[in-house]
């Protein structure tokens, strides 16, 4: 039993770390731009589909596929910021619907080009580790370490670099930051690029755990929402912690009750969090 619990814990951590990476960008965009990017979940799916398309249909290497996918999703995100989010920033609430439109268009383009196929990217290294009766797939361990590495990089970037400080300054107060000479427009671009790169990495990695179909992006959007609200919108460190917690909850609910109820467990946790601490468990969420 203890072995099973440790197994579930590690699996949940690996999943949660991926959710954390995926949701950190969503939270960061909200913090810097005060916009909910509802297309975020679709970016996640798009990167997985692009990798699949390049790897399987164009017969190029997996690594090339990953690199091209990350670059093109990031470029798409930057384009969205350049053409939609920045010029139309005065629209506020309609902007949310505009990002929904962008998400819809991308989803339908995937449908129309690649088709409603289920995809699964190859696992990085197959096999399982069997130790003291604990069985864990090597893939999950690698995913766990990779995502911990990425999270640490993100943390170091936000904490110590000048650009990271600028991002945090804008999250706190855009006007004051601008007054102190923070180049808001450039920081916004970098935030968008960063969050799209993060989400596309998360998408490709998640695709080796879950099968994707084009519309699953909305489900992951639900997950990202839960994680972001749990951790407090705009609070990246809270988001990472919330991702880990929810990943563990998902893995336990999935084992003891049903895998299909994972979103329900999320919704219940959002429900509770909103009733108790509307700005996230760690506070610091923006309204």
């Amino acid at each position, binding site marked *: 039993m203890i072995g099973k619990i440790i197994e579930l814990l590690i699996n949940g951590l690996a999943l949660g770390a991926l959710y954390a990476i995926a949701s950190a960008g969503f939270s960061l965009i*909200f913090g810097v731009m005060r916009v*909910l990017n*509802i297309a975020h979940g679709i970016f996640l799916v798009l990167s997985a589909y692009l990798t699949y398309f390049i790897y399987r249909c164009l017969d190029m290497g997996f690594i090339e596929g990953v690199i091209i996918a990350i670059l093109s999703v990031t470029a798409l995100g930057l384009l969205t910021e350049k053409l939609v989010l920045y010029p*139309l920033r005065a*629209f506020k*609430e*309609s902007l*949310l*619907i*505009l990002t*929904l*439109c*962008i998400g*819809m*268009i991308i*989803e*339908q*383009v995937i*449908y*129309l080009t690649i088709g*409603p196929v289920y995809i699964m990217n190859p696992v990085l290294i197959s096999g399982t580790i069997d130790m003291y009766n604990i069985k864990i797939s090597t893939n999950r361990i690698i995913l766990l370490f990779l995502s911990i590495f990425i999270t640490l990089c993100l943390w170091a970037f936000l904490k110590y670099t000048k650009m990271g400080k600028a991002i945090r300054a804008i999250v706190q107060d855009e006007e004051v930051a601008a007054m102190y000479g923070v180049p808001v427009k450039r920081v916004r671009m970098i935030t968008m690029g960063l969050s799209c790169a993060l989400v596309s990495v998360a998408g490709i990695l998640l695709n080796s755990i879950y099968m994707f179909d084009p*519309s699953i992006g*909305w*489900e992951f*959007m*639900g997950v990202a*929402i*839960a994680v*972001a*609200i749990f951790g407090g*919108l705009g609070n990246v460190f809270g988001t990472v912690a919330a991702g880990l917690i929810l990943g563990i909850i998902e893995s336990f609910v999935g084992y003891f009750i*049903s895998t*299909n*109820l*994972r*979103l*329900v467990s*999320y*919704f219940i946790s*959002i*429900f509770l969090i*909103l*009733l108790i601490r*509307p700005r996230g468990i760690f506070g610091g969420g923006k*309204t």
Partner: protein
Amino acid sequence: MKILEEIKNPFKLSSLLLALLLATFPFLGNYYILDLLILSNIYAIFAASFDIISGYAGQISLGHAAYFGLGGYFYGFLIDWFNIPPALSFFLSGILVAIIGFLVGVPCLRLKGAYLALGTLAFSETVRTTILAFPSVTWGQEGLQVNRMLHGIIHNYYASLALLLSSLIIMHYVVKCKLKLYLVALRENEDLAEAVGINTAAYKLLAFTISSFFSAISGAFFASYIGVISPRALTISLSFRAIVMSTIGGIGTLYGPIFGAYLITFLSEAFRPIILRGSDIIYAVLLIIFILLIPKGIVNFIQERLRSFLKL
């Protein structure tokens, strides 16, 4: 007298006339058009109910399809499990979903703007995956077979028209006469509304409940007409449709969404030969164009033009 004043308004008169015109359609005997009209009527109720939350109370809901789908499922369950006659379970499903809407509304009261949109989206995805999680009860992706309330397309047509008109009158009475000022105050500036003593929480909750009742009714009618309700009725695609219909028609007018529903239903049918599956792409492009160019929607646009034309 009040009713007379209402009818005096040329726009409302024209909408009544339009309704009468629609009533004469069955005599054309074109079942294809009739089918589309029934669907349009159903979507019109759905879009109008969305308009109560978004247009009047100003709360963006990204998960309105949840109430639509739940209405359909409850309708089926009530008939199957408790042998309640279809017409009764039709209304009961509306009431049950209204209760759910109320319960969802309670935590959502704490949410403003962005958080509310997120909460509703998460709620609808949750309902959808829950339904998929119990295939032994809900038949999963396949969809639940539902007993029909009415047989024959003409009966369904008249019923849908009657339902549309009656729910429109009720919504109009509740929203435009009783609640309008409170809800509009809520939309324009929530903090200020609170400051002048409007119980924003209670009115938001009321808007949520009324809106979920009518979307559930439209969902139940949809299930009864089609004969099956599947999780596809709960996808974000349908919630998106509600947004598209009411924005194109004119948000906050109650009549606009109906116009939008007709327009979108017929448009997507017109585009069917060109793009089989991706009609959402057309909606998305249309919505972007409307948000950027005619954010008030067609109905307001035409009304303004007419007014300035008449004054000249």
